[in-house]
């Protein structure tokens, strides 16, 4: 690797050194010489953390002199029994995430810090709409960007043929739209007999085509899941519990790992809105981060045969205030962190143009200032995984982002 490659490996270091003008230099470089798109049977899983993850707690910048003061009562430390896990000497990882630390060290995870979508307000629901619709602003939520991505691919390809998987009784918006969506959720009660389902399929076919279509997709998904074996235990915790996250990850991995399964999936974990008593190394947020960490390990083991072709991208609608609020929690903020995990990730990299934590360096003197657009990251990942061209990404998948180049070199 040349000097440029080394530079690329540690963008955070570069940013810390103050060479901000080199930011995203890799964006203008030729695409990495990896196997041509199409020769690899890629898998992409998007995990949405609902409630706005506190990126400053998940990946604390312990090297920043402003961090400890802002985070009075919840700050993490480099030393001691509950020490944060080292990443690159400046950034650390929350101690509840040992699996992610291991994947990072093995070159299978990258972390994008001080990132956000183009949304700058503080409504969860608009923030999620923007994150998932892929539109420039809220209120245009009839389809999600992953759905339009699939609709933009040639119909014969494995990706479009198998559609996207939306996990949950209510699937995330990011996969909803014209392209086929499969649905799955951890089973919680006895399934109805096949004959009843067949008869309803016939009735809907005659009287209600939209319902006929969603039922057909449910049946397809169930067929794949049943071929993949083991009946799942019923009941269990929801998507805001560690156990629930693990079960959801197991099921999604089983479907996405199947030969005839969907290549793209979206799922959501909940409970990240930590207004009060957020906790530091232990506590409410730590429990959730531990659940996410367990889910990442579950993806790794459940997708073992295809892990080398897999990217799991973990995103949230925005971050939280840099300063702790009056109730030892944090309020709605802007810049936060995103994770890229998987065998296809060009890992062990902190990707950040670090803005700093001094009051004048914060967004509106409140939030971590976003310096990396999460859409550039998403565009870079899916461009390399699925061979999408820049114009399609800029017009159909993320409309109006022609000026936002796909970040390059994220994928091995």
């Amino acid at each position, binding site marked *: 690797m040349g000097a440029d490659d080394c530079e690329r490996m540690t963008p955070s270091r570069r940013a810390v050194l103050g060479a901000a003008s080199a930011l995203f230099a890799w964006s203008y470089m030729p695409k990495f010489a990896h196997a041509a798109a199409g020769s690899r049977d890629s898998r992409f899983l998007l995990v949405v953390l*609902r409630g706005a993850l506190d990126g400053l707690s998940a990946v604390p910048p312990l090297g920043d002199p402003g961090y400890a003061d802002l985070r009075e009562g919840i700050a993490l430390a480099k030393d001691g029994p509950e020490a944060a896990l080292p990443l690159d000497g400046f950034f650390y990882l929350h101690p509840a995430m040992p699996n992610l630390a291991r994947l990072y060290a093995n070159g299978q995870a990258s972390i994008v810090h001080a990132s956000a979508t183009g949304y700058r*307000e*503080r*409504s*969860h*629901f*608009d923030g999620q709409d923007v994150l998932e619709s892929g539109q420039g602003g*809220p*209120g245009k939520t*009839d389809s999600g960007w992953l759905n339009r991505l699939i609709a933009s691919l040639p119909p014969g390809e494995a990706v479009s043929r198998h559609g996207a998987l*939306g996990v*949950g*009784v*209510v*699937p995330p*918006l990011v996969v*909803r739209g014209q392209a086929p*969506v*499969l*649905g*799955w*959720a951890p089973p*919680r*009660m*006895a*399934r*109805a*007999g096949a*004959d*009843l*389902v067949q*008869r*309803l399929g*016939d*009735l*809907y076919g*005659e*009287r*209600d085509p*939209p*319902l006929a279509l*969603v*039922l057909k*997709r*449910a*049946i397809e*998904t169930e067929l794949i899941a049943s071929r993949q074996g083991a009946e799942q235990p019923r009941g269990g915790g929801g998507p*805001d519990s560690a156990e629930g996250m693990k079960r959801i990850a197991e099921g999604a991995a089983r479907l996405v790992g199947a030969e005839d399964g969907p290549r793209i999936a979206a799922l959501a974990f*909940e409970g990240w*809105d930590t*207004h*009060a008593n957020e906790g530091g190394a232990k506590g409410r947020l730590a429990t959730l981060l531990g659940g996410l960490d367990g889910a990442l390990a579950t993806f790794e083991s459940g997708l073992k045969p295809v892990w080398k072709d897999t990217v799991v991208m973990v995103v949230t609608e925005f971050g939280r205030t840099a300063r702790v*609020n*009056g*109730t030892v*929690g944090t*309020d*709605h903020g802007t810049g936060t962190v995103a994770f890229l995990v998987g065998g296809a990730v060009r890992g062990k990299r902190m990707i950040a143009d670090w803005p700093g934590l001094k009051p004048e360096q914060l967004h*509106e003197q*409140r939030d971590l200032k976003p310096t990396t657009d999460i859409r550039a990251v998403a565009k870079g990942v899916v461009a390399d995984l699925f061979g999408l061209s820049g114009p399609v990404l800029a017009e159909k998948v993320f409309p109006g982002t022609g000026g936002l180049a796909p970040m390059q070199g994220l994928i091995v």
Partner: protein
Amino acid sequence: MADRSEPSQKVLALQRFGLGLKPGRAAGVADVRERLLVDIRSEGAPQPNVSFSGAAPIGRALYAFEDEERAAREARRVAGQQGVGQGVQVASAPPAPGQPQGQMTAPAQPVPQFPQAIYREEAVARVQGALEAETGFAERLVQFWSNHFCVSVAKGNFVRAMAGAFEREAIRPNIFGRFEELLIAVESHPAMLNFLDNQLSIGPDSRAGKRRGRGLNENLAREIMELHTLGVSGGYTQGDVTSLARIITGWTVVGRDARLGFPGSFAFNPGLHDPGGQRLLGKVYRQEGKEKGMAALADLARHPSTAAFIAHKLARHFVADEPPQALVAELTRVFRETGGDLAALSRALVTSELAWAAPATKLRTPQEFLVAAFRALGRKPDFGQIAGPLGVMGQPLWQPSGPDGYPDTNAAWATPEGIKTRIDVAAQLGRQAAGSVADPRALVEEVLGPLASAQTRQAVARAESKPQALALLLMSPEFQRR
């Protein structure tokens, strides 16, 4: 394709605005409009029958429960220290062969703890009221407003115990009053103050704020403007959020010390309140104490953005995901001209030709579907029969995943897994009710009447069993859509 005859329109109206036909009372669907309007009464929606009267007694009982629990925990800790780690030994012993883990030390039939016990009672009472209602229009409005001003029992024991009381005290009496009254009742209810953290919020310049160096929590203030009144694009700034948060500091819940009133009830605590004037949406509020917040909420309730936001949400809920613009405009006009008179607004909704004429596109929400199914089948469900299906269908009672409530569009409910799960529920209901329903074909006529399509009648008639016939009825497009 759809039957647009008058009787069919009237049955559809009963599903659109209410909870569907009740078997045995189908004696004509004449005067549907008048029957719906009967529900609009100045005293609000009927109250469900529960043993606790309100937030204050629930709060007192909750605190007592927590004190007992703490004492018991302490006693166990002391006993554990004296017992030289015996408890640890038992807990770590492997389960006997064939014996599932967790059953070794647990009592055979655990008694639900106080917050869960009262949540169960409230849930059953709420559903029972909906089953008894004649048309169910008022119950549907309760569901609508309860979702608009939602609280979630996932927040913790306090909201779990208070969610039912919140609906009974803040929502039901006010759904036919003025929006302003409803808003103030909701935002000053202990359940809401706890759910959105306002009882923790301390004015930075208040006595307590200066002493403790702690401060604001703007969660409730933000959601009041974004979700409860103006709507997210209603024209406010981050500065307005912070101002409103300061204005409502001191709106809190009485603790177990009973210093400011009955434990668990609302109180204004001047020691937490930020003194002085605050500028909100260009106007400065200088009232003393609680009056400052009352004045701010009253202005928010009368704001034009609020009228438009509520009108759109109401039309979207009852009529179509993309409601007719003219209907939204009409509801907005009524809201503004009557100063937010919710009786007038409800009347405008059920008498609008546009609201009647729209085709049945909306899928019933899981809660609507389950209640309509229980009504159709004549069931009196227990808590498990309510909580189980609602949980798997993604709409447990008083437990949305965020303060924006449950989704209200087909995109969220008419999904592969959503429909598949509904079929599972319908199959189970069909099995449970098969013994008590004489003839599913007759039931189709009783609950769908002229709305039933030839295909649905045929599917039910040709079912291989009675349970399957009932499941087909419940999952038919005419039962599912309204």
